[in-house]
């Protein structure tokens, strides 16, 4: 691929599965291997352990790194803490969006707490990447439809429930799809693309948990035409995040 590539689903920090990748240099090396220009990263520490310590740690790590832009992790169970921290960190300009993980934060996509968290993000004009898995993809779409002005990317596109993706985006015009997945089924992206349209899909990898090769290969297999490629690989992200 020769077009600009923006990866809307990435992380920074070490993972517990084994790879000793935790520095910005690790992200950049992986990005270079796959011609990725910009990654939107959330802190692994913030997602898997503690947003209070993980968000500022990420801010420190990406300061001065033009190719790494932050995704502020919101824990819907502790919105007060999140609001306070947003007041402190958003003025830095390092964070372009928010990230919510339904499992780690033990907050189902269809819960009132999720709606409140999305409302907070909408008030701060932060597009939100929400981990979506299984039929929760449809619950997420319903919640998004209830929250005025929020713009949400369904991370993983439901994972194994990806065939629900076209139905999910029919329920609201403020939901986008990011299909990063460690077990990619054949022809999945083309199937969804033909039903959802290229305006509703964004390129994402779940790096540094998953090697970007999986997403790059899956999008290559989809045989994107030039129009689709520009929208999916960068223009949709540019519009959503003001890049």
């Amino acid at each position, binding site marked *: 691929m020769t077009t600009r590539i923006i990866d809307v689903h990435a992380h920074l920090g070490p993972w517990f*599965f*084994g*790879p*000793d*990748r935790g520095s910005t240099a*690790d992200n950049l090396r*992986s990005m270079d*291997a*796959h011609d990725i220009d910009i990654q939107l990263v959330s802190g692994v520490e913030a997602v898997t352990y503690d947003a209070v310590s993980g968000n500022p740690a990420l801010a420190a790590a990406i300061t001065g790194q033009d190719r790494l832009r932050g995704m502020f992790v919101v824990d819907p169970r502790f919105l007060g803490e999140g609001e306070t921290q947003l007041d402190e960190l958003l003025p830095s300009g390092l964070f372009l969006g928010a990230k919510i993980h339904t499992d780690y934060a033990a907050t189902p996509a269809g819960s009132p707490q999720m709606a409140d968290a999305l409302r907070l993000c909408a008030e701060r004009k932060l597009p939100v990447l929400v981990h979506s898995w299984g039929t929760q993809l449809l619950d997420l779409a319903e919640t998004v439809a209830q929250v005025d002005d929020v713009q949400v990317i369904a991370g993983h596109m439901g994972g194994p429930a990806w065939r629900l993706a076209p139905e999910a985006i029919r329920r609201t015009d403020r939901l986008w799809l990011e299909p990063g997945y*460690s*077990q*990619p*089924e*054949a*022809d*999945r992206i083309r199937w969804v693309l033909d039903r959802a349209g290229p305006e509703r899909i964004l390129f994402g990898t779940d*790096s*540094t*948990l*998953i*090697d970007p*090769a*999986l*997403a*790059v*290969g*899956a999008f*290559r*297999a989809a045989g994107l035409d030039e129009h689709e490629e520009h929208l999916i690989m960068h223009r949709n992200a540019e519009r959503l995040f003001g890049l």
Partner: protein
Amino acid sequence: MILDCDLLIGRDITTGRRLTAADMQTRLEAAGIAGGAVSGLRALSYDPETGNREADDASRTFGWTFVCGVDLRNPVDAESRMAAAADRGTRLVRFATTRQGIPGTAPRLRLLTRRATALGLAVLVEGSTRSVGLAMMGLGATVVFLDQHFYDAGEFILAAREEPGFHASTRLLGGPDAWETISEHVGAQRLVFGARSGWSEEHSALERLRSSGLDATQQGLVTSGNLLRLSGGPR
């Protein structure tokens, strides 16, 4: 040369998709994959007799390696079918544990693995060390775990140190450094290129291969050398 150790032809009842042998060949050619080891979904899902015949015919037509499919839901039949296949010179058998609803704790899995080992068969198992590995340890078995996820790569390394016959397919080893870490700890001879082409996204596995940190010798083992060793060489 790239060979896929995890080829399946036929219809998958869960997704409703079907892939004929001709479709598979077209797909492999488009991806630059020269062939591989094939089982029939008909054998794994419905009827081992006709399903294996279908896969064997396809393997002869397209130069693939036939993998005997057995139904673990009928372990007595599976045992005799493995013996007959070994008599005919087949070297690979596929255990579809997940597809057939057989847990790793079922005694038949260990008993049939022991029987396969005695027959000189290498077992391609739908599962990982985490899900079925315990049943296969301590038997001197040759096994390729077709669903070894990179989350459990560390467990594979520990198990492979004790089990010289343990191998992992690359299909779900999509973490950064998973191929390289396994190669570093137990050698590239334990990794077998598997993509489950046509069902799983083969271009993802191929892109991972392209960007891997393995040297040319290691890549040669992973992409073809190890499978040829396990299957007894080109057909």
